């Protein structure tokens, strides 16, 4: 079967775009922490690329996208080690003549979906800034990806595969996508609610930072926050419009709604700041963009441009208000993963139930406000609730297990000194005109000969 080179080009380009989101997130988060833990924050994100990248090839892809093993809950082991993927095609849906005009190499799909599996655990890291043991975090990523992300992504993203007649199911997928019929185009549930809910669990497991909330440090590098948000915005076009898996009108609509919801998210957040705090801030603009991006993610192919504005502005306003919740309830979700990703994910997932329109070409039922009744809203709510509950419980259990075994949190002393030096033996910057202050340089053991010579 021939592959469509244009669709393949778009999916490959989108995969690269989504890859870049994880470093983008690292800088978005990294700029917000204090100077003594910037590297640790970058590393908690970067390590997800490494760990999940390897897990995905070994068994992650198979658990997520191999034919359903049982009950729409998890894939089987038929693609372990990426078996039976090389040189195979991902067919997409057949046209009326029974051809598959939008076939792409399976490995393009494998890579595209890998990037989602990477960034989802990375999102969680913002909740536990400044205080986590690095390898404990690494272990959490392994376990959470395996026990939560891979199954949940199967529920949401694994669609039943159909034969050339367009109706016979040749391989089953996950329960949310196929049985429940909730709409989540690019991951409002599987990515954002999932990560946000796990973030809440981990914030509770690790507890508050010393002195929080009375003492706090300012974001150490606000330009990095905006750089990160910009890379996220850029990469998110791959995330959302790439989720069409074709370079077509649905992708173009998803691109459009992504763009405009993000724009509206910025305006919504800044509006709240202007009214509440008296000034529009840079961190606020960056946060509003991310809130808009999060909320439009599930909805991007199901609403039109004006719908995108609504989704964005609602998300911008609600998330700007929601970041205060942690003070009210007293949990130290350090970089507001709950306020932005859980709340934004819920906003978007539920708004699909209100604003979805059958006119976008993505084959949706109409939402409540589009004359479609409560039906879709109900499905959306069930999907959101199921993912939220499952992720919270398992993340909490994994977190606790790590905490009581190898320990999840650094000592108070290390937290005071800063996790960059204690966990990574590095410091972020050395900008002083004074170089060599206190340096006594000892090269690697290997090199003693030459040095002594």
């Amino acid at each position, binding site marked *: 079967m021939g592959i469509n080179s244009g669709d393949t080009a778009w999916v490959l380009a989108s995969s690269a775009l989504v890859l870049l989101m994880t470093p983008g997130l690292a800088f978005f988060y990294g700029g917000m922490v204090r100077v003594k833990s910037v590297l640790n924050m970058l590393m908690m994100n970067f390590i997800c690329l490494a760990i999940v990248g390897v897990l995905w090839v070994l068994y992650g892809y198979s658990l997520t996208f191999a034919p359903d093993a049982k009950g729409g809950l998890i894939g089987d082991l038929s693609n372990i080690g990426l078996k039976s993927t090389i040189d195979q095609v991902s067919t997409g849906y057949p046209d009326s003549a029974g051809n598959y005009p939008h076939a792409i190499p399976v490995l393009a799909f494998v890579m595209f979906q890998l990037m989602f599996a990477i960034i989802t655990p990375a999102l969680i890291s913002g909740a536990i800034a400044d205080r986590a043991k690095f390898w404990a975090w690494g272990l959490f990523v392994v376990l959470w990806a395996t026990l939560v992300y891979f199954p949940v992504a199967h529920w949401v993203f694994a669609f039943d595969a159909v034969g050339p007649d367009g109706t016979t199911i040749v391989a089953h997928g996950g329960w949310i996508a196929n049985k429940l019929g909730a709409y989540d185009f690019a991951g409002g549930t599987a990515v954002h609610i999932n990560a946000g809910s796990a973030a809440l669990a981990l914030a509770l497991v690790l507890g508050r930072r010393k002195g929080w909330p009375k*003492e706090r440090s300012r974001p150490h590098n606000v330009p990095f926050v905006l750089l990160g948000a910009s890379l996220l915005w850029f990469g998110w076009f791959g995330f959302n419009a790439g989720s069409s898996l074709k370079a077509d009108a649905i992708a173009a609509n998803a691109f459009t709604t992504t763009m405009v919801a993000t724009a509206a998210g910025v305006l919504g957040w800044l509006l709240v700041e202007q009214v509440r705090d008296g000034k529009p801030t840079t961190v606020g603009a960056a946060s509003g963009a991310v809130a808009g991006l999060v909320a439009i993610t599930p909805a991007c192919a199901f609403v039109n441009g004006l719908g995108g504005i609504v989704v964005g502005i609602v998300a911008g306003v609600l998330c700007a208000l929601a970041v205060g919740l942690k003070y009210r309830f007293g949990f130290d979700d350090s970089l507001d993963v709950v306020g932005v990703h859980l709340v934004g994910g819920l906003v978007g997932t539920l708004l699909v139930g209100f604003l979805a329109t059958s006119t976008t070409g993505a084959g949706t039922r109409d939402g409540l406000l589009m004359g479609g009744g409560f039906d879709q809203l109900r499905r959306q709510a069930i999907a959101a609730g199921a993912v939220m509950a499952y992720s919270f419980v398992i993340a909490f259990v994994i977190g606790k297990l790590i905490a009581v075994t190898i320990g999840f949190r650094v000592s108070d002393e290390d937290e005071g000194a800063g996790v960059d030096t204690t966990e990574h033996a590095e410091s972020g910057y050395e900008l002083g005109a004074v170089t060599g202050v*206190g340096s006594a340089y000892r*090269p690697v053991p290997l090199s003693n000969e030459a040095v002594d010579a």
Partner: protein
Amino acid sequence: MRLVTAIVKPFKLDDVKHALETLGVHGLTVSEVQGFGRQKGHTEVYRGAEYTVDFVPKVRVEVLVDDHDAERVVDALITAARTGKIGDGKVWVTPVETLVRVRTGERGADAL
């Protein structure tokens, strides 16, 4: 007039400031310094090569005071800055001959 100078741990600065305000001290000047002493620095590693940082970040606090306040300010500084661990720092007093407020030209205690 006297100048009281203290080298303290950075995270103690807020406590020091509050203690001085309680004493009725109206102003102070702080700067970032690097200290070397009994407290050890730390080691960093870049591509396998070790890099020993001997210096520890400290804050210098300077307070100009009237002669008879010096001892009280020294005591307040010590109490506020103390953690009891190595590296808490030093406080010392030096004589000041002339002190002027730039804005008004007031001299001596009036300049405080």
